[in-house]
């Protein structure tokens, strides 16, 4: 056997064994202090002989006892770990040893396990920069090209020995810290940039599996990159947080999102299943029906919380009329007609909440001037007159009421008040109360017609009304 390969192999074995010991015991720990033994061991393979053969890299405890026998040195109790340390490293000492033996490389143990320029027996875990140096990778560890990770690492799904804690401790690459990385514009492109040779970048697969993507991606089945990742629930040890895109922060978003959905449905489908639309929409709009339904293999995606839009704040119920009449179909996006009936056809005896508590007492001022269109919800006869009658407010004739006692001459000067609030008058008074004076057929024949009254028009449209006061002799 030629001495050079032997030397190299020996060095490699020593380095491998030393590295293995270091993996178990951090530098300076009581387990094994390589640097303290610097003068004792001229080679690595003296202890780590198993590295070369593919057997255990750990030293034989008997070797330690050759010095630590209680006479020369105090005894130590050490035994190699029963289970190899969990790792996602693709690295095999034996394969590297074979390369060394074949003369393909001049690597030594210290090339990987000793920082450049450090003295003998300064043993560390494999120094990544030095791995990169041999493998021609010019970048920091977490900034390596997307294809480079697979040189040394298994995909997460294949690193079965890693537990959740170890996965959760993965360091986040600087690229992930860039603004908007998680919001899709960047990470999606990075994951697919190498396609078609790589359906998903090996850099993604090193730390992530399909389950991780499915935290956010409702469209996982439609994304080849995600499907290229193996499923692995351990990948959820890394926490994914779905952040709403900036477009969603706009005050107009709620009002304008329908147009966005129609023009950029695929983007919406990234995070939204059909169900998230149905959280608010009572029926499936056309665009929504093209979104995938939630189900097996799809992520939960965005959770939509039904809430009224900003436009509905500040007493919107009192001023929704015009907007609701113009945009019925917009209202119908989130409301069913039963919602309208809740207020517009209130249930007798139900304590409705449109009006504040105690409104019954304060209703005269609102009713006189119709702060709201009372008749839109309350039938005057059924609601107002019934109650007024039972409260004793309904007169038994035009002059037989004492209600307006603050205005003694009210009956003689009621015209202005009546024309201003006729709806209030008729909640207590019937036509005959008024016709006693205002009919052309008898009484005082006071003309009730006010400004804007078009007798000709009314006679043509409904002469029946005219006959009530004018009989068959309708003037004009």
């Amino acid at each position, binding site marked *: 056997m030629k001495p050079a390969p032997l030397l190299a192999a020996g060095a490699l074995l020593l380095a491998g064994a030393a590295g293995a010991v270091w993996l178990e015991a951090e530098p300076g720990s009581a387990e094994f202090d390589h640097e303290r033994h610097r003068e004792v061991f001229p080679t690595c393979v003296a202890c780590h002989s198993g590295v070369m053969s593919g057997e255990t890299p750990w030293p034989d405890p008997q070797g330690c006892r050759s010095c630590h026998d209680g006479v020369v040195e105090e005894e130590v109790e050490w035994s190699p770990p029963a289970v190899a340390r969990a790792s996602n490293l693709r690295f095999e000492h034996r394969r590297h040893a074979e390369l060394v033996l074949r003369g393909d490389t001049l690597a030594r143990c210290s090339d990987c396990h000793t920082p450049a320029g450090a003295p003998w027996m300064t043993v560390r875990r494999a120094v990544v920069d030095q791995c990169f140096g041999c493998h021609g990778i010019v970048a920091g560890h977490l900034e390596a090209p997307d294809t480079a990770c697979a040189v040394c690492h298994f995909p997460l799904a294949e690193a079965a020995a890693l537990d959740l804690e170890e996965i959760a401790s993965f360091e986040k690459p600087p690229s992930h810290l860039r603004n908007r990385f998680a919001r899709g514009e960047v990470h999606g492109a990075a994951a697919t940039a190498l396609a078609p040779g790589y359906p998903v970048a090996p850099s993604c697969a090193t730390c992530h599996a399909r389950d991780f993507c499915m935290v956010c991606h409702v469209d996982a089945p439609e994304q080849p990159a995600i499907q290229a990742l193996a499923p692995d629930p351990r990948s959820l040890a890394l926490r994914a947080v779905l952040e709403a895109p900036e477009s969603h922060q706009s*005050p107009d978003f709620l009002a304008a999102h329908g147009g966005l959905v129609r023009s950029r449905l695929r983007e919406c489908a990234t995070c939204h299943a059909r169900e998230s639309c149905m*959280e608010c929409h*009572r029926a499936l709009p056309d665009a929504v029906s093209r979104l995938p339904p939630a189900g097996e293999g799809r992520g939960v995606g965005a959770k939509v919380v*039904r809430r009224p839009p900003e436009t509905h704040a*500040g*007493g919107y119920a009192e*001023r929704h009329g*015009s907007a609701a*009449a113009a*945009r*019925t*179909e917009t209202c119908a996006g989130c*409301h*069913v*007609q039963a919602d*309208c*009936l809740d207020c*517009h*056809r209130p*249930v*007798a005896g139900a*304590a*409705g909440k449109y009006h504040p*508590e105690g409104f019954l*007492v*304060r209703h005269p*001022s609102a009713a*006189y001037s*119709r*702060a709201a269109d009372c008749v839109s919800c309350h*039938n005057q*006869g*059924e609601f107002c007159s019934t109650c007024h009658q*039972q*409260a004793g*407010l309904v007169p038994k004739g035009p002059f*037989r*009421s*004492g*209600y*307006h*006692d603050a205005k003694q001459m009210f009956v003689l000067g009621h*015209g202005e008040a009546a*024309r*201003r609030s*006729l*709806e*209030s008058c008729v909640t207590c008074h*019937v*036509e005959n109360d*008024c016709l006693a004076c205002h009919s052309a057929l008898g009484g005082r024949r006071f003309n009730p017609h*006010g*400004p*804007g009254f*078009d007798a000709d*028009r*009314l006679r043509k449209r*409904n002469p029946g*009304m005219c006959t*009530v006061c004018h009989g068959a002799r309708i003037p004009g």
Partner: protein
Amino acid sequence: MIPVRRIRLSAALAIAVAHPLFGQQFRVELDSRFQSVAYRGWQADSILAAQAVTSAYGGPATPDGFALRCFPGAQYCYYFRPGKPLRAHPWTTSARGSVWGLGVGGLSFHAASLAAFDPGSGESWPGSTPALRLVEGYARLAAGNWDFRAGRQYVASRFGLRGLDGIRAGLEVSRLGLELTGYGGWILARGSSLPVLSPALNPLNEFRPRRRQLLGGIQLGLRQGALVLRGTYEREFDPGPRYLAGERVGLDLWAALPGDFRFSFGADYDLGMGWWGSAEARLSFAPEDWLIADLGARRYRPYFELWSVWPAFTPVPYNALSGNLSVSLGRFISVRAGGEVYRYAPTGAASPLLVETSDRGWRGSLGAGYRDRRLAASANYFLELGPGAGAGGVEGKVSYHSGSDFTLSLYGSYLRRPLELRFNESALGILEAAVEYRPSDRVELGLELGRYAEDRDRPDAAAVSWDQLRLATRVTIVLRGGARGSGLPAAVLRMPRGPSGR
């Protein structure tokens, strides 16, 4: 005679034994409410005019101190004594349901009914007769761009929620942003689910038409970008002599303007009377979700059908300007303020020397609110003064939400209400506690207990105080299911159950 009992029995049996079709789904909501409330009205009385005395405040009064209204030259003067306390116990049960998935795509049936009665009091609580009524009941077929409905239903337009027993057909052409709806049938009375001929709507024995009126209407909606237009034409007429009962045309507009502005406008013209009806315009500004402001103008003119004589009395409109501002201070606190001023158009009725009444009024409110995940609190101050009456007071409410199943609310208010045409300034204080409990997503229970204390201040002997306890209970049960079992979309299932659920 219709065998109602047999029909009901058959229907119940059919429902009980029927197997659901594939895909058949339904949702039924049963809501039962009971209230115990008291109110105190008036008892009309009279004395001979010769017995009237002059009161300390200057007007005529009875010898025992009740203010009188004496018509010059009349033999009697009239007045009101405080009436006896009336206690009502309205008990209502409503059922609302939908069935779909009947094997015909887009076909569904919808119904809502109300049973109401007032046990014990002998007085009819408004809306408690007839004891059973069909609020709505229609079949719907949504096929492509078409939407057909037949039965008792409601059409939303700027004329309100018009009820009719009839048909409606709608066509939506999304490509053109066009929506066309036509409807017709026998109309229901405004603000009610009963026909206008129902005695329940005519307690005072007013004039009523002999037959139900027919209603025909058409709506045309147009959406172009941020602009939405909708025109509505409606015609009501008597099917007998073909007299017109009403004919109106209305236009509504909504637009999103640059700079976070929104504009809405609506106006209607009464073709029957030949005058403009009500109109409103509002400009809203919401640059951020913490600020909402709006300015509005409004015109209100009451509408009466032509089968009554009231349009001939020429009600005049009023014109109003209003503004509202709502500002969120951080995540939890918001403040709001709003106000409106209004003034009536000239009435053409000249009698100011005899009775001077106000032709203008205003109203305003100022409030603040706090809301986090568990706690909500609000306080409000309001004041309004207008023709006929005014009101002003403060109110506050605190609600605690324990997760999604339990809510406790406390409410208190104090208000005063002066009248213009009558001696009466009521002062009302309210303290109320309410509990809502939702043991499951299908059952909801509610209980309200309130103390109402009212003093009716008058300068005469009719001043009266009355206090009362009010009780309201509510049980809501939701049943849903079907062959596929998933029920309605989440949006519908989460719909608030009326205002009390919000």
